[in-house]
């Protein structure tokens, strides 16, 4: 199959070239016109389709000099059959914030990847990186040299800061409550060392969304989720409302009745919002973007701890700072994150995400250790169980009873 002249027989995969949705098989075949690796990938994948099992294994750690992350090592378990994918390592390349490109930059990546790898990519990986899919160990260092020459660097993998990512934010969205791109670039640069040299108990992901719509799913899949919000009044353009009613929006039914805090009222002419009850869900603004806009006192909610289910079940991030102003150089946030990373690095167990760490030590203790005041905004509700750990108690000296630390 690894033979250059005899294209692999892929009847099953060929089925997936049919149909209206763009075909990944076509992509692999397209790459295979030039790349033996892509050709063997096609073969090994057809084999998986026949046998219904994968044919990859991960082995020793591979990477580029001085870095501990950014490369995912993969080896075929059928190298005899498909020698060109005997090694098939992935490089994670840190994307530009907001996934904006000039074509030159993308072409530069294509060119270097044509020289060094399979010619296959993912635009993008689920964390946000440009994924260069498949090359041999001996190509890694030279690929990296060409990458940095093109102005790109590797992203995270392993127990490090993972490549931060963000929504399109102020670059194109009228709702961005802070500059997600600037923040993401800034924090990425600030944590370069932590990103390239894994030294944590486990991975640590940042994701930045400009508003509660959370278009990068930060609350579900980032150890630190920074979600834009406001705390004054929603800006209303009463005149523009009219336009919507004329264009078929039923403000009462579609907007007021869907408001989770039921804080809106519409008399057919004027919309009133009792902003002190608004939970900043975005629904009304989403429904009528010309008429409503987030308030002017903007910032972000900082949430911590989301992750996929392994080992104790999935977690959503939860509120750590109910409102933080988000202005460069983001000192308040960086200091907070610094304390968190220090504490977790010190006391986290191996393969314990920060969210799991917090649950193990208790959010109250965690807050104390990083110097944040407990706030009711951090909880959906106070505890329901009576297993309170009282650290302060009275000493047994009846004459002079006094409160002391336990």
């Amino acid at each position, binding site marked *: 199959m690894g033979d250059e002249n005899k294209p692999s027989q892929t009847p099953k995969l060929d089925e997936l070239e049919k149909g209206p949705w763009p075909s990944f098989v076509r992509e692999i075949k397209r790459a295979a016109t030039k790349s033996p690796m892509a050709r063997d990938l096609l073969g090994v994948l057809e084999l998986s389709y026949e046998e219904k099992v994968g044919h990859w294994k991960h082995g020793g750690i591979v990477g580029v*000099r001085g870095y501990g992350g950014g490369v995912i090592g993969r080896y075929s378990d059928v190298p005899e059959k498909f020698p060109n994918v005997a090694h098939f390592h992935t490089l994670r390349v840190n994307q530009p914030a907001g996934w904006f490109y000039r074509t030159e930059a993308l072409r530069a990546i294509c060119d270097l990847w044509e020289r060094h790898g399979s010619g296959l990519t993912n635009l993008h990986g689920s964390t946000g990186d440009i994924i260069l899919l498949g090359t041999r160990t001996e190509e890694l260092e030279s690929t990296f040299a060409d990458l940095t020459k093109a102005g790109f660097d590797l992203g995270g993998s392993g127990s490090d800061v993972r490549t931060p990512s963000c929504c399109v934010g102020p670059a194109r969205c009228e709702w961005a409550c802070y500059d997600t791109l600037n923040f993401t670039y800034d924090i990425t640069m600030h944590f370069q060392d932590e990103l390239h040299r894994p030294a944590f108990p486990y991975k640590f992901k940042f994701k930045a969304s400009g508003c509660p719509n959370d278009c990068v799913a930060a609350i579900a899949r980032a150890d630190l989720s920074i979600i834009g919000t406001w705390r004054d009044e929603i800006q209303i353009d009463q005149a523009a409302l009219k336009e919507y009613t004329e264009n078929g929006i039923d403000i009462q039914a579609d907007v007021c009745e869907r408001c989770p805090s039921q804080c809106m009222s519409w008399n057919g002419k004027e919309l009133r919002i009792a902003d002190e009850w608004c939970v900043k869900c975005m629904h009304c603004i989403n429904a009528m973007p010309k008429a409503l806009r987030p308030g002017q006192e903007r910032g972000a909610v900082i949430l911590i701890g989301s992750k*996929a289910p392994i080992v104790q079940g999935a977690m959503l991030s939860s509120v750590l700072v109910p409102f933080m102003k988000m202005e460069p150089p983001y000192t308040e946030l960086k200091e907070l994150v610094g304390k968190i990373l220090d504490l977790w690095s010190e006391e986290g167990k191996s393969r314990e995400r920060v969210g799991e760490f917090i649950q193990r030590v208790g959010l109250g203790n965690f807050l104390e250790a990083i110097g944040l005041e407990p706030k009711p905004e951090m909880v959906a509700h106070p505890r329901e169980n009576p297993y309170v750990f009282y650290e302060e108690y009275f000493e047994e000296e009846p004459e002079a009873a006094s409160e002391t630390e336990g």
Partner: protein
Amino acid sequence: MADTVAERKTDIGPPHYEKFLPPVVKANYGKWKYHEIVQPGVLVHVAESGDKLYTVRAGTPRLLSIQTIRELCDLADTYSDGYLRFTSRHNIEFLLTDPDKVGPLIIELTTRGFPVGGTANAISSMVHTQGWIHCHSAATDASGIVKSVMDELIGHFQTMELPAKLRLALACCLNMCGAVHCSDIAILGIHRRPPKVDQEKLSKICEIPTVVASCPTAAIRPKRINGKETVEVIEEQCMFCGNCYTVCPAMPLSNALNDGVSIWVGGKVSNARHAPMFSKLAIPYLPNNPPRWPEVVAAVKNIVEVWAKDARKYERMGEWIERIGWPRFFQKTGIPFTKQHIDDFRHAGLTYQRSVHIKS
């Protein structure tokens, strides 16, 4: 730049995003006023200055050859001054200032096989993972199922007639790369047999305490076999999560006959109306049936259609189910409710119905 050994550049970080922003974006950065969705796949953002930015969004397979990337770059050079971007769901977006170019670009994209759409109340591209293309841990393929499902549902990508956005996602194993645990419909690769322990290899390459600790159900016990430190798996306690395999390659789980796919519904991420929610189990098991996974495609399509017909305007899958209740979700979709649907993990008790508020 922390490291400067022999001129080798490291820690340069990603290119600064400003270099890649089209002039109209730079000029109106942070000063957008509102947007409209002109037609499926086409947004117009209007700035306070009055400037307009047209975005044309198209689906891609995410797995792209350099040839295709170059092709897309050619399009960007022709239509959008060499600027383009990708979305958080792996769609490509062309950023235009000239409205007259929108139509021609759409024709060009469509002709080349890139469907335009994915905006507003549509099904956008599926967030997904590596599958048999690249991951050692996959219980199913990713790209093949995504292609099969999207072939079937592409109509909802190209129109905007659903009650709300519908976010589909796929992860090929329980590690759940991507946010499948909070998707309207999630497809999840699953193993269904305990790992087979390769005793020889294990004692050489894995750390026993790590392996033991990796198991969420404490199914792994250290054991000495033929004088070698290794482990045993208590089969009845194993829930096939694969975490042991992730920390120790000597415990593979793949099993051609029993691996397959489960379907999850009702998750969401946005804070719009309802707070974010996890997806919940709808179908515990469907077989791996490559190349087109017809059972999976049919199951997903069925759920989409029942929801599309029954949900109110703005009602995401999870909001709809919350309104009609789970008994009716199962009735309406015709999916059988089984023992597997009932949680029996850590917080199981909290998922029981603890009131007499019943909608049968």
